[in-house]
């Protein structure tokens, strides 16, 4: 069955959660494996087939000189390259180093920082190579992942909504927690895809899918302010899992104090 398309899964700085999403497809995994060759997926298999690969899924952000070189090789070997998750798409939680001196972080964590090789920044994959599609989320949604794999292997556009989380609340029938309860919520500026889980659990969205298409972040920030959210808190809300996404970075910069 050498004519089956070859899938590769690559890891950069990340928690492994997004690639785990593939193994979490308990009902679909064996069926998927019937239609593709899992050619390079170290978390799941010792067997590694040489490239080129039809589809590469890339998890994680670029934080070391070695990884900065490695992503170029991954791109060269990949017909399609799809980033999976907030780290690969917007630098991830570790991009908080971009707002400070990484040396300070190193001193806090490691007794001998001279042993550590790292870049000053955590950057998304698209800052280094051309990316064919970015799948959002911290973590990604496994059904969206199956859709993206299916779409690329059939050379069609993935059916992934660019709407905000608000649309998913409406579809789910969740009463708006911001309007009804004054709970501060990032849903209006956050890309859909999770299924609007947080509001359904009586919690405001915390923006783990990153900015939607053309988000009105300043309007949301004004609403938050009126709900009593402090400037420092606003800054933190935009600076968590997708702090390198330009829209969130820009809005975060407008509020609160530096060095928090």
């Amino acid at each position, binding site marked *: 069955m050498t004519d089956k398309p070859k899938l590769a899964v690559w890891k950069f700085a990340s928690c492994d959660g997004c690639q785990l999403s593939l193994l979490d497809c308990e*009902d679909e995994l064996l069926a998927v494996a019937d239609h593709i060759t899992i050619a390079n997926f170290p978390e799941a*298999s010792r067997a590694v087939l040489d490239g080129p690969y039809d589809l590469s899924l890339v998890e994680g952000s670029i934080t070391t000189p070695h990884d900065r070189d490695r992503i170029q090789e991954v791109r060269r070997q990949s017909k399609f390259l799809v980033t999976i998750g907030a780290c690969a798409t917007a630098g991830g939680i570790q991009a908080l180093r971009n707002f400070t001196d990484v040396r300070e972080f190193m001193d806090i964590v*490691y007794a001998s920082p001279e042993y550590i090789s790292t870049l000053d920044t955590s950057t998304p994959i698209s800052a280094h190579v051309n990316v064919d599609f970015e799948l959002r989320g911290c973590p990604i949604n496994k059904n969206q992942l199956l859709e993206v794999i299916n779409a690329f292997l059939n050379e069609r556009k993935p059916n992934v909504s660019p709407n905000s989380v608000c649309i998913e609340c409406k579809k789910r029938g969740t009463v708006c927690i911001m309007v009804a309860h004054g709970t501060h919520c990032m849903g209006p500026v956050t890309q859909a895809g999770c299924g609007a889980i947080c509001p359904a659990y009586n919690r405001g969205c915390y923006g783990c899918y990153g900015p939607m298409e053309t988000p009105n972040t300043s309007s949301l920030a004004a609403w938050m302010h009126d709900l009593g959210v402090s400037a420092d808190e606003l800054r933190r809300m935009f600076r968590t899992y997708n702090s390198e996404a330009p829209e969130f970075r820009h809005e975060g910069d407008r509020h609160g104090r530096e060095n928090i």
Partner: protein
Amino acid sequence: MSDPHGGGTRTIKVDYLARVEGEGAMYIKVRDNVLEDVKLKIFEPPRFFEGLLRGRDFTEAPDITARICGICPIAYQMSAIHAMENACGVRVDGALRELRRLFYCGEWISSHTLHIHMLHAPDFLGYPSAVEMAKDHPEAVERGLALKKTGNDIVSLMGGREIHPVNARVGGFYRVPARSELSALREELLHARELALETVKWTATLDFPEFNQDYTFVALRHEDEYPMNEGRVVSNKGLDIDVSDYDDHFEEQHVDYTNALHCVMKPDGNCYHVGPMARYALNFDRLPDEIRNAAKAAGLGPVCTNPFQSITVRAVEVLYAVTEALRIVDDYDPPQQSAIDVRPKAATGFAATEAPRGLLYHRYTIDDDGVIKDANIVPPTSQNQKMIEDDLRRFVPTCLDKADDEIQYVSEQAIRNYDPCISCATHFLKLEVDRG
């Protein structure tokens, strides 16, 4: 590569260890048929969590630290939450405490089952992956997937999603389930209990190399429960301390070839063993009779000292977690409030919980406004890293008459005995065997 039976130097290395969570390598050097060096290298890029937590609000720590590991986010959430509650002088009991235990059962089931069926079993049966193994052993792989799904279904109900669930908070949960929602899990859990028992029996049919070790086991011990969220930190060599004294007895050391910190016991700098084997050895008497009987039927005594048999210990813990989840579901009486109010105060809080891979210690110092001033996190794999090297140092000499690729295979298996989570340990692996 050189003659495995002759002299000279042999190097066996694996640049990128497979079927572990994260990026690591192994290096083994043999000179004149004597093992000279073993290194477990972790090149997973560091992400500096303890640094980036400073200045964040105390309520953010559970969700932020969950991002250390996509395989065991609940462990991070639970350790962070309990440490913050400890700092604020709050104790959460009753139904909320039971729900946290149910949530943790879900993670134990899904994480252990992933390791048993998809990462570890292929070693014993000679396949590169579970997908390949499924062609000859479909019933085993399908059983594993079904069990894993049950674990994930618990996590999804309690937490909203399988990975980085959103519902746990300092003080309790954002939303607690109705009795009917938990009851809906009952049929699935009853079926899962049968699958878990079959898994225990199935792991007992695997061939284990003879490799019994005199380990120092460290785990939590609770006065009447098999430990998850609380207990004293104890060992089989006389340690018995409160979690707040952890730093007096353990320390992390930074070695040059790895991005993970090596954790050792003070004052001698000795390695120790955390995880399912340690929990089981130190808490066998806390398991219900039916679980102990299943373990006994699968060839386990009250203490298991062969790390290759950890697959059976994990299967016993899955059986326990399913049984415990059933108990909690059946006894559930919804709490009045989804969370109790927790007000910050300037203090240092400590907690250790039992992640699937072992003891997970968190310590935070916060100020009166709840701002995190200092954070320290010691994941299970940093604690086991030196232990894994120690195992290799004893195990590799028993197989030096084998060819390099066979040594490599069994050495990788010896590493996977620990279900190492490299993402966690880097706050972890790649195999090199150097025969020169």
